[in-house]
């Protein structure tokens, strides 16, 4: 037996902690890859600008990574504290996957992070580059296991349900890991992480370009290089991401049609369905108000044919429908941001061709505004897929209401309050440090996190200082 309120609190807490957490791994995945590329370019070309950029972004990485670790620690225990029924039933399948994540990824990241951070002057260049690559590979492996686990919850395969205990027993690990939605989600998430970082790097670069212009001096070589690299990523990856998202949509239609119905706010299954641009889905009255749509396009996008059938929410019993209002909007925000990213990318290509790439204010302002866009899209995407899986934790097999722990409401409320307060303190401070770091212009002879600072007695990380304008 469970009370509705404990379930609500557990869900709120999960949404809050996982929403906070996911931002940092995504940031780490993209940033670690970027750092590996920078260091590789430095070794290959010998150009100091790449080493300067490497050190500049390494300082940000140390903060991002630490916040990812501590918020991830919470996730690994939250399944047990708040979702003990889910843990006992799905543990035999998800537990080993998460343990593999720790063994193949977390240790790799943590083991080589020290060398990457503080080892530039202690080990050879080749070894240091290897350490950077290991950290980057670790982030990618970690993502793969998490996406495999989450995909299994969305499209479960390779299990047998034990009649006596109701537990999921692994039957075929290959099918469990490589379940039908895994490859699509993995690609979509990896590209999302790269785009998140591309727009952060681009945004920081744009800010310094605008600032240099305002102050009437030339931007440093490092600023120009990072802005250019970021815009190449945007121009190339954003369109690919739109295609990847489209194929994931087809996959979802095939395996989770009820989720599609909720995302589209469609109540009646039909072919030649419209694509709604706006609407207010109303679960109680089984209708969507104030619809604004483009005829036929819904079928065209979802099924790639005009006569394709798009599912409706009324195809499913009332107690098996995801809350359409939330996913309808989260999905649309994500798509809109994706389109904007591609637009910025194309615009940057056009300006490169025109030769005004480093001077066009409109592009720089757009890139600055888009700095957090990747993270907003990422969160909206996760909301779409997770809320769209409701009312199940394991799709179609285990209900969210039957997954929660027998924890009293006061306890749940206490932990929720405590997490909100602590996260607020930690992430405000972290964000402040990051922004202060970004306010400094990357310049020649950039110091990394391990280098001595004249105003400090000791320390591997230096205190922040006033940006020097001696460029």
């Amino acid at each position: 037996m469970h009370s509705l309120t404990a379930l609500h609190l557990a869900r709120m807490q999960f949404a809050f902690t996982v929403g906070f957490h996911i931002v940092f791994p995504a940031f780490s995945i993209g940033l670690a890859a970027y750092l590996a590329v920078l260091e590789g370019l430095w070794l290959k070309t010998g150009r100091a600008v790449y080493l300067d950029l490497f050190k500049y972004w390494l300082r940000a990485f140390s903060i991002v990574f630490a916040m990812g670790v501590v918020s991830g620690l919470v996730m690994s225990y939250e399944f047990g504290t708040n979702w003990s029924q889910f843990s006992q039933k799905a543990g035999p399948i998800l537990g080993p996957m998460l343990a593999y994540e720790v063994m193949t990824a977390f240790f790799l990241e943590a083991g080589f992070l020290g060398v990457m951070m503080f080892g530039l002057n202690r080990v050879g260049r080749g070894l240091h580059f290897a350490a950077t690559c290991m950290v980057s590979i670790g982030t990618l492996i970690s993502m793969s296991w998490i996406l495999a686990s989450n995909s299994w919850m969305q499209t479960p395969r390779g299990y047998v349900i034990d009649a006596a205990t109701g537990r999921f027993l692994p039957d075929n690990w290959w099918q469990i890991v490589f379940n039908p939605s895994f490859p699509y989600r993995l690609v979509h998430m990896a590209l999302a992480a790269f785009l998140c970082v591309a727009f952060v790097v681009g945004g920081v670069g744009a800010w310094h370009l605008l600032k240099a212009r305002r102050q009437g001096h030339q931007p440093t070589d490092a600023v120009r290089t990072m802005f250019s690299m970021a815009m190449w990523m945007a121009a190339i990856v954003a369109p690919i991401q739109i295609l990847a998202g489209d194929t994931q949509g087809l996959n979802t239609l095939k395996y989770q049609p009820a989720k599609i119905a909720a995302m589209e706010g469609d109540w009646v299954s039909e072919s030649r369905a419209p694509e709604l641009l706006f609407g207010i889905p109303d679960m109680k009255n089984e209708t969507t108000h104030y619809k604004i749509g483009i005829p036929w396009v819904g079928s065209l996008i979802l099924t790639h044919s005009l006569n394709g059938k798009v599912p409706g929410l009324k195809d499913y019993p009332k107690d098996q429908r995801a809350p359409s209002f939330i996913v309808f909007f989260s999905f649309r925000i994500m798509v809109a941001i994706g389109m904007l990213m591609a637009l910025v990318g194309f615009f940057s290509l056009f300006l490169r061709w025109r030769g005004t790439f480093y001077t066009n204010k409109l592009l720089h302002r757009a890139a600055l505004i888009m700095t957090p866009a990747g993270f907003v899209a990422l969160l909206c995407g996760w909301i779409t897929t997770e809320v769209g899986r409701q009312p199940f934790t394991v799709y179609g097999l285990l209900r969210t209401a039957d997954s929660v722990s027998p924890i009293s409401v006061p306890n749940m409320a206490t932990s929720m309050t405590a997490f909100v307060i602590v996260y607020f303190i930690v992430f405000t401070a972290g964000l402040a440090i990051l922004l202060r770091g970004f306010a400094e212009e990357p310049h020649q002879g950039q110091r990394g996190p391990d280098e001595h600072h004249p105003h400090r007695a000791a320390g591997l990380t230096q205190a922040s200082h006033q940006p020097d304008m001696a460029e």
Partner: protein
Amino acid sequence: MSNAAYWLPIVWAVLAATAIFIYVVLDGFDLGIGILFLGETDETHRNTMVNTVAPVWDGNETWMIYGGAALYGVFPVAYGTILPALYLPVLFMLLSLILRGVAFEFRSRMISKHSKFFWDWAFCLGSLVAAVSQGAILGTLIQGIKVEHNTFVGSPWDWLAPFPLFCGFAVAVGYTLLGATWLVWRTETDLQTTMRKLASVLAVAMFALIGLASLWTPYLHVTYMNHWTAWPQIVLVLPVPVAVLAIAAIFGWAIYARYRLLPFLCTLGWFFLCFTGLGINIWPYIVPPTITIWDASSPPSSQAFLLAGSVFLLPIIIAYTAYSYYVFRGTVTAEHHYH
């Protein structure tokens, strides 16, 4: 019960205990360093202390995430009953670890005195509360958890009892000793001298606490008592208390003769013996007094799948972790990060 279903949980119990032991030792000394901030206010010394663990603390904490994930995959029933039973201490532990974990990165990057002061205290108190919480979690587990039909049915305040709180205090003292002896090994000058003095005081305290715990624990459950007093097992378990005494003697000598590494190794020895003693106590239960390791197990297919990878990967992990420690070897001083 098939052979695999009998043996796999035993193998996993040993492996999980090993992983938890590695965690306790590694994170123990860096939590201990945080606790030592209470007595060490000198800015230079504080930075030196943190610098001795800055490159490795992330890896230390990863063992804890591994422990949680392995428990989830291999003994899901234990994972799903222990954590709800210890809801509040686990919450305190997680919040403390968050604050002290980011404090590593934050404290040196603060500009204003106030914010630096705040993160120094977050590092210190976070370490202390995490250590006490871990001890309380352990104590509550030894004391026993009320379970019916694989679901926790006790009170959320079961951990607020004399024995768990005593364990919380004892673990905090033990971690502080680990931190102090680690610093004796890794630092120089007056910081090292201070730590050596502190270590000798803490060692006496820890020795007394080990003795008290050894006398107290058997009275919690009759099964515990039987493990220690039944003939012929007594022959097998007797070496544990004898070894504790022997290490105490070596420790005294190590401090007197100013050995650098030996005090740290002695502390490790004590921790290992306490751990062994604990294992002897609760065997074969994983959630005393009702759930054995076999009751708590996931199916052999899960355990075998994870074991295959662990046997292959853990040695590799230990190897590159050791390499990382090797890169950052040597003593740390205020003037130079590493020699």
